[in-house]
Every structure is written in C-alpha cells, then in structure tokens.
C-alpha cells in the first residue's frame, strides 16, 4: 500500500551559502537528479525537525543533481540548515504543474525575480539557457532588499556569459553599498525602464505577493498579453497534494492546479493571496 507522505532520502552533494541566511542545496537520489520540470515543487525535510515546501531552483536538463534554496526561518529550515554534505534530506515530489516551455520557444523572454522568489525563476531561466538557441532575447531582472541579500552570485556571472542575454540586478532604495554597481530601485520601477516590449515575448515572474501584484500591472502597461505573463505562487502548504486544505486561492488549489499560473488565470481569482 503506497504511503503518499513517505519521503525518499536524497543525499546532499553540495551546499552553497548564498547570503548570511539563505542556502542552496544540491541533492541526488541514487547518485543522480530526479525527473521534474521547472515550476514544480517538492516537500523537503530535515527528518526529525519537519517538512517545508520549496520550488526547484535548478534546470531539470542538468542530470547530475537537483537543487532548492531556502531561508533559515523556522524549525524545519533550521534543521535543514544544520545538515552537511553527505547527510540526507527527506524529499517528496515533484508536485504541481510546470512552465509551458513549448509556448516560450522562439520568443523573447524576460525573467523577473524578487528575493528568494528568484529560486523557481532560476530553474526555468537556466532550463532556457541550457537550450539557448530555442529562445529569442533573454532579459533577467532580479531584485533583492539589500546587496547582502542577493543570492546566486556565481550563477549570475554564468547567465551574463550567454549571448543575447541581459542581466539586470537591482536592490531596494537604501539597500545599496558605496561600491554597488547595479541598479537601485524596486523591481516594478526598474522593469518599466527596461527596453523590453510585449510583442512576441513572454514574462516569467516570481517574488513576494506584493511585488507580483505590481509587476503584473507594469507588464500589462508594457504591452504584454495576460496569457504571456507567467507567474508561480508559493502559498503555505503542508501536504502538497490537495488534502491539507490551506494553499487555495478561491477554488484553485495552488498545489494541484498551480503553482504556475498566467496573469489571465490570476485575474479570475479572488484577492486571497
């Protein structure tokens, strides 16, 4: 009889300290990655401390590992934070829907991430970069509160190395340091200053709910169709499989019908996220 709450044990291959309170963990099951797609999520746990929900942060085309990023905040993440390379992490998943990369092929794409919401954006971004020739111009806009809060510093350098790829990094006003060379301003403000148009283009967005709400408005102003604005919503979840009853927005269960939605789909949801 299948126990749908039983985790597999995934082994920690590498830990990247992104910022003082965030880490990215690279995992393998039986020495390799698992089958998943960008946009999907899993339930990751430190056995004995608890389980938390995280989206995948890696490109699923890279077969040697899969990764997620977390901020140490509560009991479960403190537990995960205490683990070392070689230790095991409980994993259930992958769950949920995923980005429709077929719909994105041949188009310009702008990837917009805020804070730790950059994690699922990184997954689909690196997936597209892995098949760079399938897509048009790629723009990345990533914002964090302060310079210290910027994650993925090594990955950002890798993104910049791709042809026809612009990477714009911004920090909130007041979050800059004297030697900061990137942009200063909130993500929606910087977004509207970018030379990006909605024609034959797709926008991928994830970040705090308040950022998503404003970014969706900006993108529409810039001429993006609501069907071409894709976001991923990360509501609080426990089971990840439609039973524990807390991730719904109106009638939509984020864990099953999401977490990936278009702005058009979000428009029909009540303001409950």
């Amino acid at each position, binding site marked *: 009889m299948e126990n749908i709450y039983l985790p597999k044990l995934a082994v920690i291959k590498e830990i990247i300290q992104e910022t003082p309170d965030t880490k990215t963990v690279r995992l393998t099951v039986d020495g390799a990655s698992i089958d998943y797609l960008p946009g999907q999520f899993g339930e990751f746990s430190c056995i004995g401390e608890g389980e938390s929900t995280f989206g995948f942060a890696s490109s699923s085309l890279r077969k040697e590992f899969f990764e997620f990023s977390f901020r140490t905040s509560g009991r479960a993440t403190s537990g995960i934070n205490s683990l070392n390379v070689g230790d095991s992490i409980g994993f259930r998943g992958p769950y949920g829907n995923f980005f429709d990369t077929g719909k994105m092929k041949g188009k310009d794409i702008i990837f917009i991430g805020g804070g730790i919401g950059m994690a699922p954006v990184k997954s689909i971004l690196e997936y597209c970069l892995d098949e760079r020739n399938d897509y048009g111009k790629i723009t990345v806009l990533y914002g964090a509160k302060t310079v210290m809060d910027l994650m993925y510093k090594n990955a950002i350098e890798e993104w910049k190395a791709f042809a026809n790829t612009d990477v714009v990094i911004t920090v909130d006003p007041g979050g800059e340091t004297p030697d900061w060379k990137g942009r200063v301003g909130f993500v929606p403000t910087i977004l509207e200053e970018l030379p990006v148009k909605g024609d034959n283009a797709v926008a991928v967005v994830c970040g*705090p*709910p308040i950022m998503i709400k404003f970014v969706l408005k900006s993108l529409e102003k810039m001429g993006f169709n609501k069907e071409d604005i894709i976001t991923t919503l990360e509501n609080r979840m426990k089971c990840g499989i439609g039973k524990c009853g807390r991730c719904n927005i109106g009638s939509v269960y984020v864990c099953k019908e999401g977490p990936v939605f278009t702005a058009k789909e979000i428009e029909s949801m009540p303001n409950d996220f």
Partner: protein
Amino acid sequence: MEEKYYEISSDNIEKFVNNLVAQNNEVIAPKDKDGDTFYDKINDFKDADLNILLSKLSFKEYLLPKTETLFEYSISGSNINILDPLENTVGNGETDVSANGGIGSGSESSRKKSVKRIIFGSRPCDAGAGPIMEKVFNWDYKDEFFNEKFKNLYIISIACVQPDNYCFCTEAQLSPESSYGSDILLKKGGSGYYAKVITEKGLELINSSSENAGLFKEIPKETFPADKDWKAAFDIKKTQGFLDKNFTSGYFQEKFLSCIGCGICTYTCPTCHCFDIQDEGTNEKGKRIRNWDSCQFGIFTLHTSGHNPRVTQGDRYRQRLMHKFKIYNEKFNKYLCVGCGRCSRNCPEDIDLKEITSELSLMESSAGD
C-alpha cells in the same frame, strides 16, 4: 446492491449488538462520559446512550485521528531509517486510535486484524461525513491511512425524529432520515426498529452469524416507514450563489468581528479535515505526524515572509464558508457540511452556521429579484 428491508424487535437489536461485541468486533456507540455523550467503545448494548440527539463530537477521529503517525524514523550518524506504518499494518491501519481525548485501553492497540470497527447508533449527519471526506482523500493521490479506516468502518445509523434549532441537515441536502453514508439505517417503530440495509457491508453484519440473521425479519419495501416530508427552510444553492459573487462583501468582516478564532467549529465538525504535518521526537528517533488543524488560526496560511493571505477573522471564516459551500461543491458536487450544527452549538460566541447560510441564501434571493 438492491436495498433490503427488515424488522427487528427491541430485544433482538440488543442481542444483535451484543453478538457483534462477542464476535470480537470493536463496537462504538454514543456513550455517556461525565455528563456528555461521545462515540466510544461499548462492551454491552446497555452502555449505549441512544436517547440523545447528537453526541458532543462526531466519530471523525475514527477516520482521521486527531494525531496520526505517517512514519517513524531512527537516526544514527548519517544513517536514517524510516518505518512505514502502512507496510506493517494490515486491516485497521492506525491502531492507536482511542476514543475521545485518547482515553483508551491498551487492548485497542492489540486489536486483531480481522476485527471490524462498527459504529452503532450513528446519526445520519455523522454517517454522511465519511463519504464526503473520502473524496478529498482520494482525488488524484490516494490516502491509504484514511482509506484503510474507511473500508473497515461499518455504520449503523438511527434516524432522528426531531432535529433541534441548530440542525440543518435537510438544508445541507441530507435529512434526519437520510441513509447516505450508512450501511444500515434503523428507524424506530414496530416491535422495536425497522432496518434498511443499503450496502454489502450492512448485509455482511446481519449475516455475520446464523444467529444474527435470525434476529432480522425481512419485510417488503412498502412496510418500511416512508420518510417524512422534510422541507428545507432555505435553498443552500442560493448560499453558494452568494459566495460565488461576493468574495469582498462586507458581510464577512462584520459578521465575524465577534469570532475569537478558537477553532472549535472546525474541531467539532464531522467534515473539516484540514491537517498539519509535524515531526515529533529526538534527533535519534521519533515520528512524523499529522494533526487536526484549523483554517480559523492565523498561522494556518502565514507565509515565512510574514505575509498572510487571510489577515482578519472575517477572512478566515469566509474561507470556511467558501470551502464548505462553494469550493468543495465545485470539485465534488456535494457540500462539505452535513448540517449537524455542532459548530454553532459549541461556539463560545454563538456564531450560528444555520443562521449564516440562511442569511446568505436570502441575500442572494433578494439580489436576484
């Protein structure tokens, strides 16, 4: 199966129940405990309190225990061992469920595999909750913790004669005489009871021994007393109609200003099934458990960032109404409510779900005029 009808005398129903106990089944019935009535294990028919309208709690915890082990773990160094209870359990699934507040005897955890768990004297509302919850636990991913218990639960209901002011089962699309979710429905009358056997499981109980079979006298369907003409005081579809259109209505914020967010409505609800998952133990051994949770608690939807989609108690009670009378219905074409009224009876602020659903229904009616 085709329904079968019987008559059984008061003496024989007592014999039947005592036979079920003697056959080593776990028989659970409404039972007095310090002045309140709970579903609890009985060893004799006389332990059952069949006169009260509704027990304090439903028998939800026999399907979804307040705390349930999802797996056990042991850790030594970097070695982690996980013990799956479903692999080790045959028959009843979780074996440490004891009635009401965990006051159970050790004998319950050593229950034999073949033992049936029989609820005797369920009310139709409580019986209706099982198949309603079953849908959630089986859309897409199958929850075998629930399924094992559900499969082994046999329900003998006794129809109500007179609902009280908090009851609204008829409005919730059941009725005081509904057999939805029951294996056998009893109605008082004749020399004791009339029995309608609805399922194979019900028939299995009657035919569990030749002695039991002899206690029931088969009667033609026409002899079984017809249901009274229960009339709904309001149309629950209109309640749903209001909820469809009025997410931002000020009604929710005003109506639930008095709500203290204690969650007793969800705790006593036969169909509320939301749960939390937690790890409990040391860093050497322990278990992952699920516990009853409540949409009435602020932490239920609180994000790590501090953002909370449902800030006020009005937001949270609105979710409860939406889930019960709109969201669940859109997915499963039933309401996530059996109209038992326990949420209202137990509410310290006298927030009355019958009154609320009725008001919403009326508001929808007048909006349509």
